[in-house]
């Protein structure tokens, strides 16, 4: 008879554990639902951007940008309140992925920090101007990695991965490689809201599906676009010290002030991984293109092609996280290098400096 109560207890356990998890799931769903309904507090950059593009709920949408650039309006289907909130959240995510400007931190950004090992990374670092970089006249800049132009190129053949790359999958790659993290699920609000924002930008800028625009991606710089002196990381290191080190730090570890990332890391644990397209050792045209078109801020275009390639190859020699494709051994080795190299380099550089006298042993 003792077997019967034991069996009943087992059945009760079988029912109650999944049942408890189900209730927890229902609770979490409700929490998400409430967050979707809540009013969105915009970051300053997003506030300005969305105001410029006159985003508001309504039956029709007319883009002020289009009026300014072409002199004519075009009528598009408008956005519901739900759509507007999704677009606003998407803009926030692009501008401040880690939630450093948010009152509630990463929770307001759909727990984005869960998917990123790097504490520096933000979409805005590569997709500048909240994913829509323009000059003073409102002209979109070549190779500025604009999100609207990316959206209209979504689902097309990607020559780096050999896939017909959906927009969600591309965003996953950003999380995995550029922020050295994990992929959010394709159905996660984190990806859907950024997609919504990118689609809104495409509507506001009047870019059309399937077209190639100059602001899409990087304006890549292959070796053939230089005088073919060869890429040299020694020259690159020199250029880096001259042009980049004041913001990104002498070893490219970034600048963080009072918990806020002012300039992101280009090397070390907080940086992009080996698998990132930004890694010169993997794709040798993307990072030079980014540097030439977007760096240094305010003086874009001041570096020549060879200098950009030199800086990029120098950055690829610095220790950074291994990607998922490299496996655990390389990951462990890179971890060791990222721990050991910065103090060693600091020490070595202190030895070589002429202005500081060497301390005798």
């Amino acid at each position, binding site marked *: 008879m003792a077997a019967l109560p034991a069996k009943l207890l087992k059945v009760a356990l079988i029912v109650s554990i999944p049942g408890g998890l189900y209730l927890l799931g229902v609770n979490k*769903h409700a929490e998400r639902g409430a967050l979707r309904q809540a009013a969105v507090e915009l970051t300053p950059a997003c506030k300005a951007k969305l105001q410029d593009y006159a985003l508001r709920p309504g039956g029709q949408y007319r883009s002020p940008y289009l009026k300014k650039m072409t002199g004519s309006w075009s009528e598009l289907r408008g956005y519901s309140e739900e759509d507007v909130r999704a677009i606003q959240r998407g803009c926030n995510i692009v501008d401040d992925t880690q939630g450093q400007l948010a009152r509630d931190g990463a929770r307001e950004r759909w727990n984005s920090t869960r998917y990123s090992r790097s504490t520096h990374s933000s979409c805005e670092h590569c997709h500048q101007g909240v994913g829509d970089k323009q000059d003073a006249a409102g002209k979109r800049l070549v190779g500025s990695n604009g999100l609207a132009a990316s959206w209209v190129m979504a689902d097309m053949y990607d020559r780096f991965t050999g896939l017909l790359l959906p927009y969600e999958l591309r965003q996953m790659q950003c999380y995995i490689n550029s922020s050295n993290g994990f992929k959010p699920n394709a159905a996660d609000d984190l990806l859907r809201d950024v997609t919504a924002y990118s689609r809104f930008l495409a509507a506001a800028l009047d870019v059309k599906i399937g077209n190639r625009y100059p602001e899409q991606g990087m304006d890549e710089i292959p070796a053939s676009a230089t005088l073919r002196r060869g890429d040299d990381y020694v020259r690159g290191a020199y250029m880096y010290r001259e042009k980049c080190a004041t913001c990104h730090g002498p070893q490219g570890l970034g600048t963080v002030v009072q918990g806020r990332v002012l300039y992101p890391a280009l090397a070390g644990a907080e940086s992009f991984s080996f698998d990132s397209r930004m890694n010169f050792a993997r794709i040798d045209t993307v990072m030079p293109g980014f540097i030439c078109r977007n760096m240094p801020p305010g003086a874009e275009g001041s570096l020549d092609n060879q200098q950009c390639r030199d800086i990029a190859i120098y950055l690829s020699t610095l220790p950074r996280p291994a990607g998922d494709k490299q496996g655990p051994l390389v990951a462990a080795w890179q971890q060791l290098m990222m721990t050991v190299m910065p103090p060693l380099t600091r020490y070595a550089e202190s030895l070589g400096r002429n202005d500081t006298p060497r301390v005798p042993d």
Partner: protein
Amino acid sequence: MNAIISALPRILPAVRRNLLVGLTLAVVTLPQAIAFSTTLAGLPPHFGIYAAIWGVLFTAILNPARVFSGGPNTTMSAAIGVTLLPLAPPFGADYIGYALTLILLAGLIQMLFLLIRPLGRMLDLISEPIINGLICGIGLFLIFKSLTGFAGLPINTEVEWPLWIAWQSFQSVLEIGNLYAIEIGLITLITSLVVRQIDALRNWAILIGVAAGTSYSAWLNATVGLQNTMIEQIANLSSVGFVFPSLPVFNQEALPDVIAILPGAVTLALLGLFQTVAAMRRMNRKIGGYTDSRKGIFADAVSNCLLPFLSSLPTCASFNRMWLVYNLGGQSRWTSASSALILLLMVLFLADLIAIIPMPALAAIIMLVGANMINWEDIKPHLNNRREAVVFMASFLSVLFLDLFGAVVVGSVLAIAYSKWEQAHPDISLRGNVLKIRGNIYYGSLPVIESTYHGAIARVGEVILDFSECYYIDQEGIRWLAAAKAEQKGAFVDRRRDQDRRTVERAGMTSRRGDENPRKNQRRRKPDRRRRSDF
């Protein structure tokens, strides 16, 4: 003709019993076959079904073991998914082509294991703790992997270390999972688990669970509507007929990818062979018979070379299903063969019912199968012995922290290291001035023997080396013994040559052989069975 009719009354009960066991086996296998192919391998459901038909039939014909059941396998299906997901979108034409190529390559590699005898023997070096560690790790991996399917979320299209992803998938299930899907999955899971508590229905638990999940899903479709629940269903089994011929791709554009999947093919081949050899070994011991494991390798290799031409998953032995057949009283391999034929009939006539099975229910089945693979009764014995525990944990963790290929490599290396370690550490005991060595004297064990020998000489002065229980001495061992002899510090005794301690004492330290022993014919040494098998 008359002979057949007269034999009928004798044969009929056996035939009936075989058919009944075959029916049970078919019913148990069907939902698993569909679940393995759709949720694990990323292939259309008919791949699993054909594996349960043709894979079972081929292995039943080719493998002479009394109780044997092949068919689709969780681990192999998962290996297909893990290998191919980075290459192409699942269920697509490219993916299916690569899958067929992968299976054929695995079959050919298995053929190598058959043709090169020492390779086949290597499989016997995989010890039980390694197999059980792999199986437990893969069981846990299956549970993690089916989380997204359980909640109706898109599957992951890139493969990373499963352990890191699992926690995030779990959080995604709680936060953004499709609640209808979760309900269907939970109903399937709870029903199966509860039914399993009833002994009479134990074997039917999975089928009843799937039936409950499917009924709930059908009710949801009727009340809420499929367009609102957005539940994925099996659907469209129209392609399933008697046979569905297919061709692996080997064209020029595919070659780089074919080369890229080679490690996956090795993994697939090894995972299959490990399980077949281990399952046959366990079955032999449980039912007290013996079938050479080479026969199993032969059956698997030939079947896996044929199956990719029939749109089927690869096959390997399933210990659980074999145990089920044995317990139900299935006595010949025709039981498995009859299950294949019954399954074929079921698929031909029940395709409409199979089509409405919801995917979350299948994910729940994968979870159950994964949980069943983690069996405390199998693990417990390994935790009593420290060395076994280390090997078990290493192979268990390697599945979770590396990928399947890494786990197979770690498992194989551990197996070889394990057996070498055993051989390199003979049991050496010093009693008085007699140093007794039980084990091998060879290059690997000599350092251990030498250190004890020299330690003993330092303490005792002169040592008698007793190697009557040595079963192997290699050339280096002989040279060392000769050198030790030349040093005049040691004497040898070998009781197998009818020499014992008293003879040595009587004849003095320099004597080598006591040849006048009256008990010469009474004390025969035991036949040395291990000599050949250990090397």
